[in-house]
């Protein structure tokens, strides 16, 4: 049994029971005997989180019903299906943003505040490839991803190595500063004009009345493909195991002969590549300019918390859930689109309070 040595300094996750109990309130009488399923705190918080999420998804419908935007006829239901499908597609793109951020955070406990700017860099690289060299946005990934990988490694070597193990403010400020440098360099090179790539404007009709944009489907499939590929690498390859070992406990990994610094390099390189791939997907769907990166960073934060920090699959699930919730709120709630941002942040804070470990993460004691 692990004696109470306890890694000192900053323990990730929530505080030990002692500091959590409300001041002075006597401990609730526990069920008889240790080990009962009700006993285990992380199972209980998972149920509380599931209950909260169910309520969060039911709320828009309730508000919609009250406000009369809900009509149970075929056309409306088809519309609902389309919107939910759109939400899932949007979730796919969000996943591309969150996955890269989750890797860096999972392995090094660093919050990469410049992640959105890396996505924006991806969008511009794709734009240049398309308009300057006429290369199809998705094919250009073959060129832009290696570039992004090198950029990620350079960022790790020059900046983030110093932030590993340092208090979170150091990592946050270093990456925030990097983000500013990227934004204003992009403004020097590309001005602040908005850009976008007209690509696959067609429509894919899945069922009568249920249609989704062609480029959204392509983006979704791309996002799922890349995410799954990275997942398989992490899950089964030797390199993947080394990355996960470093994520769990860097000191132990070091002792087991894993060159931790090399793992950090690869992790940030991979994360940057994922961000640039996400940027490519953005460039063919939305308008972008140097300043739009901030939005992607905030969404990615919400997702890595919801999905479970450092937990790859959790990020995918969290992304799709956020996408669908935003779609529902926008469709059903009057003046809903304004509320969408509120939904994302309310979700973020609620999950952090109910279960900081998020969906997949175990509530670290």
């Amino acid at each position: 049994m692990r004696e109470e040595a306890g890694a000192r300094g900053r323990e990730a996750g929530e505080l030990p029971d002692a500091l959590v109990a409300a001041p002075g309130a006597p401990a609730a009488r526990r069920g008889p005997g240790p080990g009962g399923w009700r006993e285990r705190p992380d199972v209980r918080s998972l149920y509380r989180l599931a209950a909260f999420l169910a309520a969060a998804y039911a709320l828009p419908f309730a508000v919609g019903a009250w406000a009369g935007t809900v009509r149970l006829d075929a056309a409306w239901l088809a519309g609902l299906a389309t919107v939910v499908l759109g939400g899932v597609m949007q979730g796919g793109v969000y996943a591309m943003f969150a996955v890269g951020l989750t890797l860096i955070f999972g392995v090094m406990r660093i919050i990469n505040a410049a992640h959105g700017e890396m996505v924006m860099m991806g969008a511009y690289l794709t734009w240049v490839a398309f308009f300057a060299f006429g290369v199809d946005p998705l094919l250009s990934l073959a060129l832009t991803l290696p570039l992004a990988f090198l950029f990620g490694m350079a960022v790790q070597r020059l900046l983030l190595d110093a932030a590993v193990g340092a208090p979170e403010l150091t990592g946050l400020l270093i990456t925030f500063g990097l983000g500013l440098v990227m934004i204003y360099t992009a403004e020097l090179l590309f001005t602040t004009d908005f850009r976008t790539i007209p690509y696959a404007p067609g429509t894919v009709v899945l069922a009568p009345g249920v249609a989704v944009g062609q480029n959204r489907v392509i983006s979704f499939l791309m996002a799922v493909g890349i995410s799954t590929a990275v997942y398989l690498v992490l899950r089964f390859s030797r390199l993947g195991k080394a990355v996960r070992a470093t994520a769990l406990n860097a000191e132990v990994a070091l002792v087991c002969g894993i060159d931790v610094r090399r793992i950090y390099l690869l992790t940030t390189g991979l994360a940057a590549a994922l961000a640039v791939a996400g940027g490519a997907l953005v460039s063919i769907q939305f308008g972008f300019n140097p300043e739009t990166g901030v939005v992607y960073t905030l969404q990615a934060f919400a997702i890595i918390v919801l999905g479970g920090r450092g937990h790859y699959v959790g990020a995918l699930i969290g992304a799709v859930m956020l996408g669908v919730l935003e779609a529902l709120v926008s469709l059903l709630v009057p003046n809903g689109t304004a509320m969408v941002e509120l939904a994302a942040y309310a979700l973020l804070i609620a999950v952090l309070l109910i279960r900081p470990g998020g969906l997949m993460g175990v509530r670290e004691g």
Partner: protein
Amino acid sequence: MSRADDVVLEVRDLRKAFGGVRAVDGCTFAVRRGTIAALIGPNGSGKTTTFDLITGLREPDAGVVLHRGENLVGLRPHQIFRRGITRTFQVTRVYREMTVLENMLSAAPLGVPGREARARAAALLALVDLTAFRGEYAGRLSYGQQKLLEFARALMPDPELLLLDEPAGGVNRTLLQHLLDHVHRLRAAGKTILLIEHDMTVVMAHCEWVVVMDHGATIAAGPPAAIREDPRVIEAYFGRRPAERGA
């Protein structure tokens, strides 16, 4: 064991499980006022977890911890501290980026005015020979010095019961002797000391009462001489002799 006023701490049927692992599983013992007692047992017998349960860092699944007739279970650690029960840690937990003096002052009870707190801190630092380092960051002290600082810090509120978690661990002989002398002085002043210790020579030489734990349960308690002979204790430490293992 006599009852009522002269027992400063009584633990009854304490239990704590982490997931499936029962770290503490039926721990019962009492400590009389003005004595030096030891809590011993092989590694993983639940000693430190018991300390955590007594001082409120962890909440027990069952059982009570009585002090002056009040059950401490459910109280926050700082509330237990204010009831005169302080502790040191197995791995020292000094405030590294704060000066030695600040480490001491952080443990001064609320009511104590500034001047008195400073005087008390100075006296205790002198006692553990750390006066010279009062302006230095605690993190820069040697391991042994940090142990002494933690010991002195725990004495700031003039506690009634002092829980020492492996005071001898990693400390050289002369330093240890210095520490133990002071423990005896505290005992003479009517304080009570309960320490977790692996060094049997220290336990046997300095403790009047020994409680033995194995696999989370208390298996024996008594004066050191009796404990040394107790078959259950020997078995717990050295395992059963081959002949009897079949039973």
